[in-house]
């Protein structure tokens, strides 16, 4: 956009209008951030501070939530404590102040690892398949091209629960229920439609002349694809990969219905973190905060391509 050069001054908003607009937007941004900031604050509160009324903005920071999300603890008698040596590390110290000892790691860690494996596995597959298909659709004459592309997109219109019913039966038959491989395949199939549509847009933007020149120099079509097109498409592939990662990372419906223990990811697990006497809010907030950090980083990295990603490449700016 070349909006900001002097020739266009006639349509530039006045300084006061601009300031007023800025004020309103900043106000909205601050209000919209309150829930997120509150969760991060809660993760550093002690359980008592987290449920105090009126809500506490100033409090003594505590790592109890983070300890609780990573450990399981058991209550002990005073006699038992006398048999123990000094506390082992920070979390044990906090636990002992509540008459408990750290009994072992919690289930959060394996759920988090499942999330990582499933998200990265399905992203790698979806981007690999999507890049090949997108190149095919972009460069070759494929019969029924528009129909095939629409078919690929339409698979995303299924409500996830509707798809989960037969997938549940199918996975039960072939032995894929509650396995990481099953979830990777499922997320790949959901993400591949996004990958094809986004990457086709990116590859369409690479001039064909580059490959043609390479082929005149003796490259085969495949070599030209690997050596000329792929390096040019790196940004697009990276952006697509981040979108796929975010989807797989955030996905809940399939995860809660199709996994129970072995392959369960973090989103169905975080809400069911229970402490003594009800929900352990600092631990839930800590689990949430850790889970959200990668998304915030990715959003900042992606901000230039967000528009394209959320509209399946329909709007490119």
């Amino acid at each position, binding site marked *: 956009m070349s909006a900001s050069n002097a020739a266009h001054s006639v349509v530039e908003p006045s300084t006061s209008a601009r300031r007023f607009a800025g004020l309103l937007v900043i106000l909205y941004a601050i209000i919209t951030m309150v829930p997120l900031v509150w969760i991060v604050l809660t993760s550093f509160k002690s359980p008592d501070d987290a449920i105090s009324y009126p809500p506490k903005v100033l409090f003594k920071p505590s790592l109890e939530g983070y300890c609780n999300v990573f450990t399981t603890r058991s209550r002990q008698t005073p006699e038992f404590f006398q048999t123990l040596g000094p506390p082992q590390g920070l979390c044990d110290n906090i636990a002992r102040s509540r008459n408990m000892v750290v009994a072992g790691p919690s289930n959060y860690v394996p759920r988090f690892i499942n999330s990582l494996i499933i998200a990265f596995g399905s992203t790698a597959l979806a981007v690999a*398949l999507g890049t090949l298909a997108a190149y095919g659709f972009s460069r070759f004459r494929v019969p029924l091209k528009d129909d095939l592309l629409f078919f690929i997109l339409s698979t995303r219109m299924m409500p996830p629960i509707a798809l989960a019913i037969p997938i549940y039966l199918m996975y039960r038959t072939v032995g894929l229920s509650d396995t990481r491989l099953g979830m990777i395949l499922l997320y790949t199939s959901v993400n591949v439609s996004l990958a094809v549509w986004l990457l086709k847009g990116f590859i369409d933007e690479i001039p064909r002349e580059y490959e043609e020149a390479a082929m005149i120099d003796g490259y085969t079509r495949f070599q030209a694809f690997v050596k000329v097109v792929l390096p040019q498409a790196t940004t697009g592939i990276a952006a697509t990969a981040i979108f796929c990662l975010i989807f797989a990372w955030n996905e809940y419906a399939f995860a809660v219905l199709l996994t129970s223990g072995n392959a369960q990811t973090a989103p169905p697990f975080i809400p069911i973190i229970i402490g003594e006497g009800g929900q352990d809010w600092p631990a839930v907030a800590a689990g949430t905060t850790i889970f959200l950090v990668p998304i915030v980083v990715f959003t900042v990295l992606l901000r230039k391509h967000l528009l394209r990603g959320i509209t399946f490449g329909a709007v490119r700016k």
Partner: protein
Amino acid sequence: MNDLSTSSQITYQAVPIRPGTIRRIRGLSDQALAWLFITPTIVLLLAINIFPLVWTIYLSFTNYRANRANAPTIWLGADWYQSILTDPDIWAAMQVTAHFVVWTVLIETVLGFGLAFLIDKKFRGHGLWTTIILLPMMLSPAVVGNFWTFLYQPQIGLFNYVVAFFTGREASSFQMLGDVTLSPWAIVIVDAWMWTPYVMLICLAGLRSIPDYIYEAAEVDRASNWRQFWSITLPMALPFIMLAVLFRGIENFKMFDMVNLLTGGGPGSTTEVASITLKRAAFESWRTGYSSAFAIILFVTVFGLANIYVKALNRVKSR
């Protein structure tokens, strides 16, 4: 001659791939390569999306129950479809869904367009604030639903405290998630919080696509700002607004995760959107045949509405 060969070396750094691979692929025509590239994706989608869809259609005509897999399967014809379309509970769920879709899309469109309009004024620092505003839509709906249940707690929740602070009511006098009249709005608020940025981003693209010379011409004709907004800004951004409405409408028609965590459909069935009904029938009462029929009805509805909408969208665009 010498010159030429160096330049080609610099540009492409002709390092051969493994010789075996080349020999195998060199023989392929473009057509064969096209199919080689596209087929894996199609096969995956056929296996994980289309085959299950066909299976769902088959199950929807039977009395199959997933928790009694060995019982004999009886062909029922269109019985389930008939009973679903005449079931008052289903129509209640569809009404809850419609309420949710209409209000969320309306609020998100108005707020989102308003924000985009303001951001388009390009005040100082608008890039940073835009990125901040965009954050909620990138988060996991399940995690969002979960931490909003914390904010909505009547005794300890921040939401109740803030409302109480401004209205003078007792913070524990109302339950956003436990009250029959409030809970449908509780889920609308969270969805609007999360997805307004989505509409804002698409509208912003629409506003930025309007060329400056149109406004310049309007200035020359001394059209008022008000007039410019209604006859230039809004009509030209309309295809983008409608695209956002289409995407939000489809997504919210299918809404499951956020509502499942906030209310689980309750209290009673006041927030039971279609996907929650479907989940209860399929994975709690295990009425697989019945829920398959409902799933097909939902899919056809989404698909049909989307197609009608896309046609309307194209008409607006070509105008």
